């Protein structure tokens, strides 16, 4: 019999940093989350550092994040047969015998806690370089107030990348929140830094309607200047530098910009599996600092916008997953940044140009 081996290529880049959680989610209790198909157990040690190990007991694969598994001091005790592990993943005790098998060790993950996020390295641990964790300093910096959340997306992460790299969809999907006619109507400039692996998409609207998201938070109304500058560092971190100002008000030659309102909209796009995604979102502002009413408003508005995307992308995932391979799609000018992002992602996975939609 002649066998045929079919190799399904993953669309998820490995040897990359991914956001696994907000730091506030990880306390001195067990916390499980799947990242890039790998179930990971997190907890914060008594010393305050976040530790990450495989969320499967080496014995019979019981999830260590599930009760009755529990944390005892800085050791996790499997709730099924009592295998006990230290924070480094090493097994320190097994039931009924003194000898602990040498192979009894949970896979340990490199972790970096930075800018309010817990980043985890997925891939070869020896290749992890903490200095390459992309930054979003506004999220916990003085002079900024941030609201944030995370929504589960039942769609492949590439669909969220497509969505966020082309903000013309705001006009249609997010009307009444952040969408106005000018977003879809304004030409963009797209840049790619081949060496740094960054996509930058700039849309400068110098005479635009002020959407409710910004009108109620800044107090501006009527016509405004609205600049959107996207900076995407594949695969995980997306930043939208948003500048809102009265008409004609531009930054000074020295870079100062005291009469404008700045909002940094940050997304961490973390694959959970090939077909599901953790959609982390955060909105940081440099005005109305500490104003709880503004925070509540922006949190509610942005979560609503994210859920509008989630609803649309969940539908799209079901459609795409049911289509035969090779279905054609059409790209126009608004997709210039999205195509650049796809190509960089394809480069990270070693899968050619990425210009067309790929099957997971």
């Amino acid at each position, binding site marked *: 019999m002649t066998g045929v081996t079919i190799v399904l290529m993953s669309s998820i880049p490995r040897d990359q940093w991914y956001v696994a959680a907000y730091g506030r989610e990880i306390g001195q209790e067990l916390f499980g989350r799947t990242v890039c198909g790998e179930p990971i157990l997190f907890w914060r040690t008594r010393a305050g550092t976040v530790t990450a190990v495989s969320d499967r007991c080496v014995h019979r694969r019981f999830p260590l994040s599930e009760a009755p598994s529990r944390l005892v001091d800085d050791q996790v005790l499997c709730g099924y047969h009592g295998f006990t592990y230290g924070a480094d993943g090493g097994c320190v005790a097994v039931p009924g015998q003194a000898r602990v098998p040498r192979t009894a060790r949970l896979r340990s993950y490199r972790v970096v806690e930075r800018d309010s996020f817990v980043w985890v390295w997925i891939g070869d641990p020896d290749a992890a370089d903490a200095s390459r964790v992309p930054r979003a300093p506004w999220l916990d910096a003085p002079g900024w107030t941030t609201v944030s959340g995370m929504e589960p997306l039942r769609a492949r992460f590439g669909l969220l990348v497509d969505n966020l790299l082309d903000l013309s969809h705001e006009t249609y999907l997010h009307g009444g929140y952040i969408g106005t006619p000018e977003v879809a109507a304004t*030409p*963009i*400039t*797209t*840049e*790619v*830094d*081949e*060496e*740094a692996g*960054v996509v*930058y998409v*700039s849309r400068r609207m110098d005479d635009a309607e002020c959407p409710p998201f910004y009108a109620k938070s800044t107090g501006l109304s009527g016509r405004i200047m609205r*600049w959107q*500058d996207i*900076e995407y560092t594949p695969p995980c971190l997306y930043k939208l*530098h948003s*500048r809102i100002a009265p008409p004609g008000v531009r*930054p000074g030659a020295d870079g100062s*910009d005291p009469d*404008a309102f*700045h909002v940094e909209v940050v997304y961490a796009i973390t694959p959970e599996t090939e077909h599901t995604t953790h959609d982390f979102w955060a909105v940081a502002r440099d005005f109305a600092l500490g104003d709880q009413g503004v925070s509540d408003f922006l949190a509610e508005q942005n979560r609503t916008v994210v859920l509008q995307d989630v609803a649309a992308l969940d539908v799209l995932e079901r459609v795409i997953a049911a289509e035969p391979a090779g279905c054609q799609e059409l*790209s*126009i*000018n608004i*997709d*210039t940044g999205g*195509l*650049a992002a796809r*190509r960089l992602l394809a480069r990270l996975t070693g899968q050619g*140009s990425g*210009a067309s939609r790929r099957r997971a």
Partner: protein
Amino acid sequence: MTGGLTGRGVLRVVWLPGSDLLRGTCHCGAAHVAEGPVEVWEWLLAHPTGHGAGR
């Protein structure tokens, strides 16, 4: 608020005002005007093939 990218290896695509055309500029300075993003990226990434006199 930061500006655009400033690295040595930056590829840039500008949607020409008042038109539906895209002008791609390579990091080497060569430029090409295209009618869509697929064409402009193919030209930019073919470096140095096709580069030279822009239009």
